[in-house]
């Protein structure tokens, strides 16, 4: 076993079987083509030499020298260099001594060291450390999916759109509308309050069509979005829209959670009193009905 740092540029060490490493140059393997004789090469079979036999002799008889059979002529065989077994360790030692060994794992070794047994490892187009720092990646993508389940513990970043979660007290909202209606008096034509995010009507007084809330909601959003392009300051508190038949629509859009439209009859309502008392009271009441959690 040998330790090699693989080419995937990760600070990870892989165990690579040294048997899969590239072989040294000019080194011959036992199973290489050079060492295995080809079928065309003439092979000479070496006959097994008979074992010398010693026969028992009688005692007292002179012991004659055993007859030694004539040694047959040596058969020309394969040169010793061709069949000599090369020690694998000696071969590596010689290889290491030359200093000609690869400095990185071969492609085959990398594939074998991959984490998946079957899926081939595809090296990245631009290996190396990522160009973006972890701080930049985290700022771009957040802290990961794990934190989505822990909303209250999630650290917010400046660029992220924080979704406000509000709880609107509908009973308090109805009470606020009753109070506003009593303050304005007979001059109130209609009054509608909508959710500032969705434009859905939450409560109303007077004859209000279902689409009124979304229409005025869209109009207020359009006005607020257009003012910066008109080189004017940001909109605050309310917007007075003169309507036909001497009616005045007061659009309240300062609250981030609720919007409202109060339509009054100018013949029955004093504008100064409306803007000095009824509108501020309604604004405060709307702000009190929504609670962020």
């Amino acid at each position, binding site marked *: 076993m040998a330790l090699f740092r693989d080419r995937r540029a990760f600070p990870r060490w892989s165990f690579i079987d040294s048997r899969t490493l590239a072989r040294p140059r000019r080194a011959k393997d036992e199973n290489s083509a050079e060492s295995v004789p080809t079928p065309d090469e003439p092979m000479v079979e070496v006959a097994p030499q008979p074992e010398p036999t010693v026969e028992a002799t009688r005692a007292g008889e002179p012991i004659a020298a055993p007859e030694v059979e004539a040694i047959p002529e040596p058969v020309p065989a394969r040169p010793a260099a061709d069949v000599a077994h090369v020690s694998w360790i000696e071969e590596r030692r010689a290889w290491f001594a030359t200093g000609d060994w690869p400095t990185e794992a071969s492609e085959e070794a990398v594939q074998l060291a991959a984490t998946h047994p079957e899926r081939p490892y595809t090296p990245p187009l631009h290996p190396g450390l990522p160009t973006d720092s972890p701080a930049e990646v985290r700022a771009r993508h957040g802290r990961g999916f794990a934190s989505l389940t822990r909303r209250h513990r999630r650290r917010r970043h400046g660029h992220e759109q924080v979704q406000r979660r509000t709880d609107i007290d509908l009973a308090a909202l109805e009470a606020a509308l009753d109070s506003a209606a009593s303050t304005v008096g007979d001059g109130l034509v209609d009054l509608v309050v909508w959710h500032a995010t969705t434009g859905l009507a939450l409560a109303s007084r007077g004859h209000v069509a279902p689409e009124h809330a979304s229409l005025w909601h869209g109009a207020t959003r359009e006005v607020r979005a257009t003012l910066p392009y008109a080189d004017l300051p940001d909109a605050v508190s309310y917007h007075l829209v003169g309507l036909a038949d001497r009616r005045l629509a007061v659009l309240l859009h300062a609250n981030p959670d609720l919007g409202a439209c109060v339509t009054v009859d100018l013949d029955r309502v004093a504008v*100064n009193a409306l803007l000095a008392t009824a509108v501020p009271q309604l604004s405060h009441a709307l702000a009190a009905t929504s609670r962020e959690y």
Partner: protein
Amino acid sequence: MVLAALDVTVEALRQRVGDSLVALDIWESGSALSLAGFGMTPATGPMLHRVTEDLRQTATLAGSSLDDYHVLTVTGGVVVVVTRAHLSGALLLSADADLGWVLTDVIPQVRAALDAASV
């Protein structure tokens, strides 16, 4: 329409409204092309014209119709937009301007001045 007469109208409105008037712009109602004024950028007239048209469409869809004015409260002031058949105008008033006075006095004066200048 005499453009030189619009300068007289602007000066007259400045005299009538007084120190509360911070900026003024008059544009043609059809093309939103700014014709006269002071203190505002060329983008103000067309953008307010667009806002007014959006409000007009909204009021129509809501079953009513837009009158010729609307008043926006902005940071540090009030924007009064008056639209007439030929000319439209926007006034940027300071925050201390009384809205009752704006609705009952300033807007009729602007309306009359625009009608007089468009003859």
